[in-house]
């Protein structure tokens, strides 16, 4: 940006490591100096997590959270993408349905919990429903926008070669919109991960979100609280990076500007 020297290769590792080490040290000493006996130090967090691994509980919680995200998210994709393509392709339909979507969208999935509990009871399905809600609207909106932004030239070329409108939608509009749809899908996955953790804090009795609430409630185990938070961050990041790999596949790579 400014007239700085081009960073060298080793710097790509040096600076992050330095900054992270600095923060960990800061954290550690803050705990020591304030002599708090509740807020954990980094070492305490590590010890707590190892303890959970030994007890065999951690894997189950992680798997439970992942499972709920997977089901809810895939359901949102399976319903949201076709609907979004349809609404984007027929603006008349979109015009009719959009106001409803605009009203439902600002309602936090968490606010749906009482309704979810009525339909699904306390448990897995409620959490899955929340993930679905959280991911569905962003996916729908992204697909509608993606279709609308496909350049007219592509659609004209499609009809020029004799394709019927459904064929144009499938063979031209969908591939053309795919890069921006993928971005929306990636963001929706991130949202799903956020929602599942939140949902687990209220509506279920397993999973990483529940681990956080439970660790606090039964014994003020803040080391586990922070440990679970870090795990949530790392897994969420892993999901995001995995998705970004998909964005490098050649049939969609053209849609992404060069990001280092």
């Amino acid at each position, binding site marked *: 940006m400014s007239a700085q020297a081009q960073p060298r290769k080793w710097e790509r590792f040096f600076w992050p490591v330095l900054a992270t080490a600095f923060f960990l040290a800061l954290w550690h000493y803050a705990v020591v100096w304030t002599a708090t006996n509740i807020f954990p130090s980094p070492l305490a967090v590590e010890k707590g997590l190892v303890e959970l691994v030994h007890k065999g509980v951690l894997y189950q919680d992680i798997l439970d959270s992942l499972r709920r995200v997977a089901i809810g998210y895939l359901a949102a994709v399976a319903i949201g993408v076709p609907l979004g393509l349809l609404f984007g392709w027929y603006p008349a339909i979109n015009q009719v349905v959009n106001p409803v979507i605009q009203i439902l969208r600002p309602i936090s999935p968490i606010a749906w919990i009482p309704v979810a509990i009525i339909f699904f009871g306390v448990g897995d399905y409620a959490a899955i429903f929340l993930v679905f809600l959280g991911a569905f609207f962003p996916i729908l909106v992204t697909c509608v926008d993606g279709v609308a932004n496909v350049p007219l030239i592509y659609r*004209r*070329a499609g009809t*020029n070669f*004799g394709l019927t409108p459904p064929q144009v939608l499938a063979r031209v509009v969908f591939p*053309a919109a795919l890069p921006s749809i993928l971005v929306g899908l990636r963001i929706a996955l991130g949202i799903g991960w956020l929602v599942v953790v939140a949902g687990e804090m209220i509506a279920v009795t397993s999973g990483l979100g529940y681990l956080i609430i439970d660790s606090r409630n039964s014994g003020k185990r803040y080391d586990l609280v922070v440990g679970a938070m870090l795990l949530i961050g790392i897994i969420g990041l892993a999901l995001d990076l995995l998705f970004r790999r998909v964005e490098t596949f050649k049939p969609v790579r*053209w849609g992404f500007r060069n990001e280092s």
Partner: protein
Amino acid sequence: MSIQPMIETEMSTHTLRPKLRTEEVNMIFTRDGKNLPVLENINLEVFDGEFICLLGPSGCGKSTLLSAIAGFLKPTSGDILIDGEIVRAPDPRRIFVFQERGVFPWLTVEGNIGFGLGRLPRSERAQRIQYYVKMVGLEGFEKSYPHELSGGMKQRVEVARALAVNPDVLFLDEPFGALDSITRMIMRGELLRIWQAERKTILFVTHDIDEAVQLADRVVVMSARPGRIQQIVPIDISHPRDISSPRYLELRDGILSQIGLAHNL
């Protein structure tokens, strides 16, 4: 300088019926409640295998006319007939070549060229694709994606894609506009080579006078606001054309003065 089109003279030299004809085509766009006349009384005849250039400044409606002839726009009044049928919609027999940004970025060169060939059996499809890849000089790049190619190469892909479905008519809307002038000259030569090999009817829109005189059998000079055919100039130089020959310069200067420009800058 007469407004009377020279079409009557054309009629006497071509005994065949025209491939493409526009009859009293008018186009009016409505914007913010106001009527904008874009095309007025366009009467044009194009014969099979001809190379026609629509020449005019920006905004004279030549692209609109081309889009209408291709079936993407409906004229406000008047008819467009190809092979005696009124044009109502785009058709694979008449392919529109956009600037190189019409190439589909999610398909390889092969995928693009084969786009309109879905109905053919696989072996024939592969053969055709290979033939046209060679014709436009892109051997070795079959599996490349458009974002890996230069502008000129992408343009070739689009031309190959258009040719592969064996259309009767090709519409080209300033296809070389985004290329540098050296590549442009090369591409013009390529286009002529292909045209002479395949003898398609070509309608080519440009704002470049030299380009029109270099390529066309007849140049349709259009004036702007509203778009009208000012004059149709036949270019009677045989290919390959010497762009320094007196006849070339004479024709070019004639068109320059038609448009109202002097050739001393």
